[in-house]
Every structure is written in C-alpha cells, then in structure tokens.
C-alpha cells in the first residue's frame, strides 16, 4: 500500500499541477518504480473521464498530413536503428535522421481513404471486448444530483472554443517550444545495506535493505522507446541531461530525491517522507566509483527542498557514476568529515529494465 505522499504526487502529476522540477522527479519515479507507475495509471483512469466534458474541435486538415509524414519517417528510423543498434551513443544522431526522413520518404501525402475499415483481428481480443461492453461493474453512484451539479460547474468552466474562423490568421510562432522529447535513461542502483569501512555504524534497523535509483533524464530530441533504456544506462549522460537519484529504504517509500542539473551546476535534494529526529541531521555523501571514500555533499536542510551548487571537484560523468548515501549525523553534520552515524541509503549500479512504465510524453 502506498503512502499518501506518493499517491498525492501521482495524482498531481496526472492532474498537471506540479512544477517543472516536480514533474521531472515524478517522471524519474515513473520510469524506475513500477509501483509508482501503477498508481499513476490508476489516477489517469480516475481523472481521465473528465475529457468527456471537453468540447471537440476539428483540427486543421493538414495536421494529418504532417502526422503521416512523421509516421513514415518513424518507420524508417526504427529500421535504420535496428541495423545499427550497436552503439547507444548513436542516439544523439537520431534527431538528424528523423528530420531527414520526411524529405526522402516516398508517397508521404498519398490521399487518405477514410472509408477503409480494417477487419477485426482474429486474435483473442474478444474477451477483453466483451468485458468492456459490459462496462464497469461498479454500482452506479447513489448521488446523481451531485454529479449533475459538478457537470454543470464543469460546463461553466469550459467556455466554447473560438471557431476556426476566429483563429488568428498568423499565429504567433510558439516561442521556444522545442520539439524536444524528454526521455529518460535509467540506471537502477540497488544493493544491500552495507557498512562503511572505518567508521562506527550504530545498528539501525532502517539500514536493512537499501536501494538507490538514478534516473538520467535526458533532454534530447527523438522518441526513445522505453525498452531500450537499459542499453543507455551505463553511458555518461550527454550534455543537457539531468540526473535524478531516488534514495529510498524500501520500494514503496522514497525518502529523498536528488536532482542534479549539470547545465546550471546545481543539485537539489527533496525530502519525501524522511524526517530526522530532533538534534540530528541528514548528511548527503557521494562515493566515487574509483575511490570509495565518501565525500560530503553537505547537510540536507529541514525544508522540503535543499538546493546548492555542484561540488567543484566532480564532473558530471563522475557524479553519474558515483553512489550516494545519506547518513544520520549529529546536528550540524559529521564532525570528522566522514560519516559517523548510521548510513541509511547507499547502493551500487546495476542495470534494470523498467517494467513498462506509463507512456511518457
């Protein structure tokens, strides 16, 4: 069972009220955490029916032409990719391929044949279909009046869209709406709790089973199918990536989200559920892959978000390669420069295939 914080995050993600940073974090969770993806799907189903109230508006006819061109281009690029699927780094070149495709795609604007009605597949869909036809088995709500009044409110909030004719004749070009697809490269870090060499570890039940996930959410064009994420996981993030680490003790309760923004050279720790006892502080540590000596990244503040500059002595590949840990220290942090209290979260990279996350857009 999920806690309310996570459920509320999923709900607000679906509703759309989160800020850009929070959406990044939710999307990282989506990719790495099948449990979170599941509650997002539930919220999509719960709230999704509201679209019924939105007035349909016919899009301009050329939208289909453009979709058709892109679809033809996409097929091409999938094939090309399958042939050269060796180097994940080549992903960076995909946008170019995609853009070039339409020009070389033959008969892209072939006249459509709306009458075409494909024959039903002879596959075992019927069971699902009959289920759907019977509709939800849930009993109808008793309180129909309430639903009517909400429907009226919804209608009042939904003024009719301007008709086609009223559209501005020269639509303002969308400023900076790059056709950028944020995709996520995922590294799943999981490992059993371990003790650090050279410091006393207070026995802590919390430190039993720990998992750290890092998701590299990449600002890059191209639609990166989720299934290939694991191939990309181990490579250094390309410029413009963001790194997100989810530090949690058990799969259902993330305690901290660490976001690294290489472009602005900042990192942000967000508290999810963890709260320190009075008089203790959480301290964040980076353990480089080559030299297993923890480097302090400072204390996690009492606020929900703690943002600070990236440490000067680590480059981004080193940061994406490193492990992270949070220890419980005396107020003000470790007096010795190394963790002295119980280490609550740590982990080592292993690859993982995300379990079919909710479609990301």
């Amino acid at each position, binding site marked *: 069972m999920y806690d309310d914080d996570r459920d*509320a995050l999923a*709900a*607000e993600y679906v*509703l759309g*009220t989160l*800020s850009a940073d929070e*959406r990044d974090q939710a999307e990282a969770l989506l990719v790495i955490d099948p*449990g979170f993806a599941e509650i997002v*799907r*539930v919220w999509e*189903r*719960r*709230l*999704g029916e509201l*679209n019924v*109230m*939105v*007035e*349909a*508006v016919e*899009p301009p006819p050329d*939208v*289909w032409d453009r*979709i058709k061109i892109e*679809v033809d281009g*996409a097929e091409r690029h999938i094939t090309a990719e399958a042939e050269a699927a060796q180097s994940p780094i080549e992903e960076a070149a995909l946008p170019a391929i995609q853009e070039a495709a339409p020009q070389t795609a033959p008969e892209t604007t072939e006249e459509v*044949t*709306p009458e*075409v009605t*494909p024959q039903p*597949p002879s*596959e075992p*869909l019927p069971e699902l*279909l009959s289920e*759907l*036809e019977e509709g*939800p088995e849930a009993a109808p*709500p008793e309180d129909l009046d*309430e*639903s*009517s009044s*909400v429907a*009226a*409110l*919804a*209608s009042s*909030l*939904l003024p*009719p*869209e301007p008709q086609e004719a009223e559209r*501005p004749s020269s*639509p303002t070009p*969308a400023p*900076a*709406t790059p*056709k950028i*697809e944020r995709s996520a490269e995922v590294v799943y870090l999981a490992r059993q709790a371990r003790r650090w060499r050279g410091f006393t570890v207070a026995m802590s039940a919390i430190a039993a089973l720990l998992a750290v996930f890092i998701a590299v959410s990449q600002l890059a064009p191209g*639609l990166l199918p989720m299934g290939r994420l694991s191939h990309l996981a181990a490579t250094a993030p390309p410029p413009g990536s963001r790194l997100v680490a989810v530090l949690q003790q058990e799969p259902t309760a993330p305690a901290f989200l660490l976001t690294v923004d290489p472009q602005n050279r900042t990192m942000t720790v967000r508290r999810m559920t963890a709260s320190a006892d009075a008089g203790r502080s959480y301290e964040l540590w980076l353990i480089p892959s080559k030299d297993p000596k923890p480097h302090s990244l400072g204390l996690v503040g009492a606020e929900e978000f703690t943002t600070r500059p990236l440490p000067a002595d680590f480059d981004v590949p080193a940061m994406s390669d490193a492990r992270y840990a949070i220890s419980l220290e005396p107020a003000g942090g470790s007096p010795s420069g190394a963790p002295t209290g119980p280490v609550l979260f740590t982990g080592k990279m292993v690859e993982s295939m995300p379990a079919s996350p909710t*479609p990301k*857009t």
Partner: protein
Amino acid sequence: MLMQTELVWLLGAVARGDEAAFERVYIETRAKLYGVLLRILGRPALAEEVMQETYLKVWKMADRFDPTVASPVTWMVAIARNRAIDIVRKRGDLSIEEEPDAMEVASDAPPPLARREMTEELKRLLSCLGKLDPEKQRIVLLAYYSGWSRDQLAQKLDIPVNTIKTWLRRSLLEIRECMGDRA
C-alpha cells in the same frame, strides 16, 4: 463516434503496424484531442504540434495500450495532456497573461452534458467531485481543463499557493477514498 470496443481493436491493429487502422483512430479521436490541447495550450500552432507528437507516440506505443486499464480515448488524452503540460511548465508559466482566460465564464456556456452521454466512470467521478467543497471542485476542474499549475491557480483565483497545495492534496485523496479503487 465509434464504439469504444472498435477503437480498442483498431489500436490493436495499429500495434501491428496497420496504417489504415491508424487513420481510423485519428479520424475518430482527433477532434477530442485537439479540443483538449487547444484549451490547455491556447494557441492553435502549438496544439497542432502536440497533436503530431501525440499521434506519433500512439503509433509507436499502441502495443502498450491496455484496454483493461483505460479506454482508448482516455489513454490518448492522457498522452496528449501530459505532453501539453510539459510544454507549458517548461515555458516557465511565463505566459499566464496570454492564456485564454477560462475563468470568464461564457454566457453561452454549453449546456451540461445530458445524463445519457455520461459514462458510468464519469458519473462516479463527478459524484465524488460533488462531495468536495465548491471551491475545491473548481480548482480540480480548472487544473484538469486548463492545465494550470498550483502557482497559476493561486494567481488566477487569488488564493495563497499553500492553500491551493493543501486543497489539491486533500481533494485528490478524498476523491481516491470516494472512488474506492485503489491500486
């Protein structure tokens, strides 16, 4: 409008690369998706762009569609809204002023949906929404239909953002309890 069941198997055909089926799906769903996008994005040029991205995604990901989880239109609207909201957020919410002011309730607002047009799912959701205080109903609906962030809701409704945050959380968790369909 096609039967939902037909759209389900059309999407199945799309998953196998059937372009004719894809075109049927487009024809049946385009106006709904465009309506949703236009309301959130405000600008036709932008809405058209997201239409393209959405249908390309539908083409590529039709095999992930699971009819036991959502109806085809709900699934597609979720993809479209999600992308639209990403764009609006990345823009930094800077264009609040340019956005269509959905708060100006049009005098000729469309009549409430006839009961028979409502799906059971929708009735259930509306009934749960109806149990919330009116102003909370309003923020949930405005967030869904206009794609407003907490900050925008606060600004437009002149309510402190922390209040919005609390209300949203509480409202959504109440909806969850009311609908009784936890994961």
